């Protein structure tokens, strides 16, 4: 573009504020829907099992729009297709989990098909996280690495110790469940470390990158997931709310990326024509 355009320095600030407000409002609405939709615990869990896949689906839809418009070339093309694949796998996992939870008469089976989709989704998210961290993040200081890795290491040790006391290891299923629990913890911690290092990364943040939306979403989801194995059944609702909040924030981040980092030639041309009439 050779022509000058008018300054739009306030647009990111306004959009940031609007997205924050919308995300908070959506999370509150979703939480209220879950808590007040039914007096029974089971009913609330079922409502949560509907809202959670819907929020995952909304994030997936926006990610597909981003991939369609952005195409697949370059670092960002590859990273965002990976994110879309991750969201797709997790949506399938969410739907399967919801189906098994209230679609069948049996108790939730120990080893579900959903777990394989969740685990596959983690790999896609971790690829996205590393790609974006290496691009946007600065080399972490030793202080930041220590602040983040020590609590994570302690949490991992605590989790393994807790799991060892919970499982009897008398059957193969027990061993598999034990391994699976720890794998989830490790993968969640990887996402938490990536997200935390980027959020507290030193250096000035840019006008268009002041809020790392998608990394905040990773943090929320990973924290919710980390707590899932240790919550009583009555507290599972809170993890549902964290997942829903995470998907909403991810959708906000994807919307932000679509707004500022995907080039819309037609919109720009139309605006230029409007200004130069």
């Amino acid at each position, binding site marked *: *573009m050779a022509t000058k355009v008018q300054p739009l320095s306030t647009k990111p600030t306004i959009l940031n504020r609007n997205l924050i407000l919308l995300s908070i409002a959506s999370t509150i609405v979703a939480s209220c829907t879950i808590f007040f939709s039914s007096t029974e615990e089971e009913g609330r869990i079922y409502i949560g099992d509907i809202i959670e896949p819907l929020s995952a689906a909304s994030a997936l839809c926006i990610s597909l729009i981003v991939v369609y418009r952005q195409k697949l070339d370059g670092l*960002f093309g590859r990273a965002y297709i990976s994110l879309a694949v991750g969201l797709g796998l997790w949506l399938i996992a969410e739907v399967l989990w919801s189906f098994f939870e209230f679609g069948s008469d049996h108790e939730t089976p120990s080893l579900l098909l959903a777990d394989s989709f969740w685990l596959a989704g983690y790999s896609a998210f971790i690829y996205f996280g590393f790609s974006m961290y290496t691009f946007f993040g600065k080399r972490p200081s030793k202080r930041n690495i220590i602040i983040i890795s020590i609590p994570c290491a302690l949490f991992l040790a605590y989790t393994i110790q807790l799991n060892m006391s919970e499982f009897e290891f008398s059957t193969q299923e027990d061993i598999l469940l034990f391994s699976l629990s720890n794998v989830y913890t490790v993968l969640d911690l990887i996402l938490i470390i990536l997200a935390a290092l980027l959020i507290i990364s030193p250096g000035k943040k840019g006008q268009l*990158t002041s809020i790392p939306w998608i990394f905040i979403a990773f943090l929320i989801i990973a924290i919710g997931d980390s707590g899932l194995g240790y919550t009583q059944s009555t507290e599972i609702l809170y993890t549902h709310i964290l997942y829903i909040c995470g998907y909403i924030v991810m959708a906000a981040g994807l919307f932000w990326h679509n707004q500022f980092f995907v080039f819309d030639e037609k919109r720009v041309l139309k605006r230029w024509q409007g200004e130069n009439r």
Partner: protein
Amino acid sequence: MSNNSLKQTFRCLSILDKLGYFSVASNVDKILYKSISDSLEQIGKSFSKALIHNMCSLHGLSEYELFTNYDLFEKTLNNTVGEGAATRILNKIKKELLSHAILNGSSLTTRDIINPELTISDILKNTSDKEVLRFVTDIPTHEHILFLYRNESSKDELLSAFFDQAKTANAPTCLLSAKPRDGLVSNNILYDELFEEFSSGADRAELSIKLYDWLSKSCLPNGSRKKTTTRIAEEDATCWLKKGLSNELIMLEQKTSKYIDGNLTILCGFNISKLTDEEINTMMDTIISSHGYVIIDEPLRIYAAEPDKIEVQKIKGKIQEE
């Protein structure tokens, strides 16, 4: 670099602007533009287009303004995407720029290239300086060039380029300097000798005409004036002002510009850090307008006169006597 010499440079730049001199387009701008656009495309076409559009929109700049001014681009990039991403992008640009600079004859050595402290500004300065020195080496005949400098090493570099052995082999070269520089040129005249020879008992009004005649005869081998390309340079014309010969200097510059011989190229050096405000105000307009090209150092940049604004017309051929 002192504040005073910087101030003198800005004043000279204002005079150049007032007289209608324009900055000669540099390849460095094109190299920088290409390096930035190629680097951004590697990240993703859509992302790069969106980033450029947003940087231009958020800061009210055109793409050309943004890409050809590296300091502005760096600042805008930091403000838009933050330091982390800006560092990544600038590292890519540095790699692209290095490859372009080397292809364009940059003098960067392997040690420079692998030195992590080498910045993009250093690469641009090196490439730009090389381009100016190449211009000076290859400058055609019948040109009268002014070199305004603050740094002695810039002057030495430029004089070496002007008297480049490959270009001036077997051709007469003449330098008017403060100290002996016999290794550089075939005829070296010192200011002290010149002023001693012409000032004693000479009519000062005739000094510049006699000097021009003397220089052209001394620097050209007999009988071969029209066949060889002669390069004559003056190291620091402010020496004239120290001797109270400012009017003579102005007359000399004007006559040189008017009567420059077809096979002569003349370079006049001025150490502007030695000029006073009064000297700049009273003289520099006339001095500058007598030259077709003006070169300023730090960074080396070339300014050319618009053809219809040169105050004196060049007349090729014989020297006319008044």
